[in-house]
């Protein structure tokens, strides 16, 4: 790949790093990353991936920008209210970096489309906000052998890790099944500090870039927990569970669980 004058200038602060260099920047420019969710986690993550010069950035989200999103979903502006999030996101990235080919999918992920969505991408970023989507993405990444960068937030607390199929635990090793709704926090407890997804989404971008470059140590095998209120980062060991229903010794999840069916399942558990 030949860099243009503009690209050499644009990526100079990357190229000068021995861990990146011209070769690393070429890797970034030829990589394909899929971001699932264009909201609070997706915005900072996608911004940094775009600025870093990820060659192809896929963004999946079926939702429309709402005024109440803007407190944290920083790539949408007031004028974007009522637009598709992926359209607003694409405009934001193209404003920063014309090198990035942004492909948008106004789809709701389900068992019928997830494999097709992820198959051409090198790294998948889970920036969604609900359990059925998270289990679906985890399972699909396991079956398709795709590295998954996981991030999740609640009020003042964030969790982030990396799942590398065959090289470590998966999400089901951590939590084998989703919680029934009565035991997840009630609506009175809802809400999220706007900066929190900014921190977690930026860490997700960092991990996706490191996986692409093949440098450093990712969070594979470690769960990083961020408490924004106490300003504490804590790290927990994540181990592969030999009883994991997906990647354990005797798995019983052999195919994707249908999204709707799965919803019903866990609402009646």
């Amino acid at each position: 790949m030949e860099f243009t004058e503009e690209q050499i200038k644009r990526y100079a602060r990357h190229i000068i790093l021995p861990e990146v260099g011209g070769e690393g920047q070429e890797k970034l420019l030829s990589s394909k990353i899929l971001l699932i969710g264009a909201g609070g986690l997706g915005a900072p993550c996608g911004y940094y991936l775009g600025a870093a010069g990820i060659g192809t950035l896929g963004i999946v989200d079926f939702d429309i920008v709402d005024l109440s999103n803007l407190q944290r979903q920083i790539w949408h502006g007031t004028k974007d209210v009522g637009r598709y999030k992926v359209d607003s996101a694409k405009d934001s990235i193209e404003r920063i970096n014309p090198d990035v080919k942004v492909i948008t999918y106004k789809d709701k992920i389900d068992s019928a489309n997830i494999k097709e969505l992820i198959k051409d991408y090198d790294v998948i970023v889970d920036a969604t906000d609900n359990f059925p989507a998270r289990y679906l993405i985890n399972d699909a990444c396991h079956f398709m052998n795709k590295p998954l960068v996981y991030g999740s937030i609640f009020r003042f607390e964030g969790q982030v890790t990396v799942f590398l199929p065959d090289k470590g635990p998966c999400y089901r090793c951590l939590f084998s099944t989703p919680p029934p709704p009565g035991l997840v926090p009630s609506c009175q407890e809802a809400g999220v500090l706007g900066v929190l997804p900014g921190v977690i989404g930026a860490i997700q971008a960092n991990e996706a870039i490191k996986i692409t470059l093949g440098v450093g140590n990712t969070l594979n095998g470690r769960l990083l927990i961020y408490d924004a209120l106490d300003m504490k980062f804590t790290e927990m060991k994540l181990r592969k569970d030999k009883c994991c229903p997906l990647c354990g010794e005797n798995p019983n999840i052999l195919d994707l669980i249908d999204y709707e069916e799965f919803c019903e399942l866990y609402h009646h558990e």
Partner: protein
Amino acid sequence: MPITVRIPTPLRTLTNGKSEVETTGATIIEIIDNLENNYAGIKERICEQNSQIRRFVNVYLNDEDIRFLDNINSSVKDGDTISIIPAIAGGAFERKKFYLNYPQEVIKEPIIYQVGKNFNVITNIRSASISNDIGIIALELEGEPAEIEKAVKFFESKGITVEPIVLDVVE
């Protein structure tokens, strides 16, 4: 020296907002039982009825998952830190507004009540115009996106047309 237990955000309503509490006990299960004595209701959020840890919660002794130690019987010594790590899905709960247009034959049915009862959503009527032959309601639904979607489908199954309100007309 007591044992420190780190309380995750979703359970802090039970600990008066405290992110860390101190307790005593020689094993994980003793500690959980002691926590329950001080903060009623916390055990059922962490454990099944048989006292085993729920599958969507993990308990860590220092930085090690107790499932890879002796589970709830893992022994704990003074100065240890226990962390409770629940699955969190992320995002904020959604709040969406819809115009509901009732067909005449269902105007008198308590459909909004049924939605509140059957689905995990908060219903909030923001404006309404109801007579014998017209029923138009601006309704706000708050909850997980999947639950809101189900509530919308339920309205539609009753013959009600549901239109999202894009601009905030009833703020």
